[in-house]
């Protein structure tokens, strides 16, 4: 465990509604190879949340309802969120590809059902990663699903490419 990849991640809660699909987190019209243009599309389909993001400093922990990030596999969605200071996400439930993409880039996504009910945007929260629990400012702890050991390993290596390289899976990698 390094200081940059702590098992306990502290951040400011950024509350998202139910069904915040990938196409809302980063609408397809913001697809680009230009990092600045991609970043500007963060949460563009959820204008109120985008406003809170623009007004705060982060680092942010997304606290979402059901089916976070469902749909598209476009990884630009995660590039945008990461670039804007989002470091982790918890949700009642999350889309499969979104979850993989996020972990692959070093951004944990953990299922913590009901977390959103106890949190407002701006609240300081702590994600206890190995236990899959969210700690609220009140001291209350909302239990969730502990991440699979695979995802913890990917996270601790800093993301999938570094993990795959460490596992000797990327022949010719320099």
């Amino acid at each position, binding site marked *: 465990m390094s200081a940059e990849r702590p098992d306990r991640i502290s951040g400011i809660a950024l509350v998202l509604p139910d*069904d915040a*699909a990938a*196409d*809302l987190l980063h*609408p*397809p*019209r913001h*697809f*680009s*190879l*230009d990092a600045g243009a991609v970043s500007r599309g963060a949460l*563009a*389909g959820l204008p109120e949340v985008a406003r809170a993001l623009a007004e705060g400093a982060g680092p942010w922990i997304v606290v979402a309802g*059901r*089916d976070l990030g*469902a*749909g*598209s*596999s*476009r*990884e*630009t969605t*995660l590039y945008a969120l990461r670039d804007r200071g989002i470091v982790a996400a918890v949700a009642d*439930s999350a*889309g*499969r*590809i979104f979850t*993989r*993409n996020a972990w*692959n*880039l070093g951004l944990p996504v953990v299922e913590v059902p009901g977390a959103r009910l106890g949190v407002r945007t701006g609240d300081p929260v702590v994600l206890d990663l190995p236990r899959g629990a969210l700690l609220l400012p009140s001291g209350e702890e909302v239990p969730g699903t502990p991440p*699979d*050991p*695979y*995802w*913890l*390993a990917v996270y601790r290596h800093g*993301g*999938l*490419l570094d993990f*795959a*390289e460490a596992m000797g*899976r*990327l*022949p*010719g*990698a*320099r």
Partner: protein
Amino acid sequence: MAAAAPDPAPGPSSVSSPPGTGWAGALLAARAEAGASVGSYHFVRPDLVMGHDATTALAIPMAERRGLRLLPPERLMLVGDHFSPPSTAERAEIARRFREFAAAQGHLPRLDEGICHQLLAEDPRVLPGAVVVGADSHTVTVGGVGAFGTGVGTTDFVVAATAGGLWLRLPDAVRVRLVGSWPAWACGKELVLALLAAHGPEHARYRGLEFVDDTPGGIATDHRLALANMAVEQGAKCGIVRPDAETLRHLVEDRGVDRAVAEAAVARFPSHPAADPGPAERLPDLDCSALVPRLALPGGLRRIVPVADAAGEEVDQVYLGSCSSGRLADLRLAASALRGRKVSKRLRFLVTPSSRAVYGAALAEGLLGVLHEAGAVILNPSCGPCGGIDKGLLAPGEACLSTSNRNVQGRMGSPEARIFLAGAATAAATALAGRIADPRELWA
């Protein structure tokens, strides 16, 4: 740069597929490397990896920074279908970089030949029981021919396309039996809408969605591809239809696969009791004879209603296409409804055959002529309007009835536009009427 691509032959496996993981569990376990599992994830070597221009373009800096070599064309299909042809100078630049990257890696991508998922479904390597990983969520579509397909993002794609494998979990399976006779107006989308209406958009999250077709005569493969295509809209990792006599017919007659090869692939499929880990859950049978035309109201897939409930709603555009539709069976439905008729003057009717092969077959069969005479705009096979990429974008306040698979606010242009999702017959009936219309009277 780099060492040769890794050995494409799958290694010996000692990974077992636990009860409940279904056909996907059996197919993935057979390609998993022994002793290489981390947690509940196994290092699985797919038979074929696919990337398209948009997601592969994002992989370029990752691959170049580490000096990675792509798998050879035998195991990696690259497709230019999103910016096809490009609609802006920026997207032309993305498409150019994609082509140059591919060329430098010994690949000649398939450009402007159609939507990647349809090209996969037409590919001789994609037989029943094949395992395909693609850098696009709708890679699940190949399940229509009994293949396992799953979508990933760019980072997973980079690993799969260079290491020749990636870490996957064996999903629990949820199985559905399809029964009853097939209505003449129906298409695969109607099955999806019926499932969404009954179970919602999350019921198969992280699971393998598996279908057994016990209808008399069997549902046509084009409709099965549409059924598998929207497994991802139910949260699933894959959607697989058990290969059967219709699959065999399709492979031999429609795709020209050698009969012995096709028979062997169907026979090898792990649906016989000795090989089938079985499902973790069985859903109630889906009775096709009880289908009614349905649509998804704008803004997600939680509100599915009978078309009759939304009938009369004016729309500005009808779009028949995407990887979810636009196959020959869909074009036949539309043409049979529109033959000798004219679509409403108050809307745009856009039709995208899903591949060049489909376009050619529809041309030869006279379907495109019928649609042209009816007033359709025939677009080239590509992703086009579905993701608001090019053509048919919507203005604020406009409404579109689309046979595509996503209707999230803003997906096809303005966030203030509304997208209804429905089947091909409803699209044709709506194009005729200029407002949402129940198609059944056209088949009465």
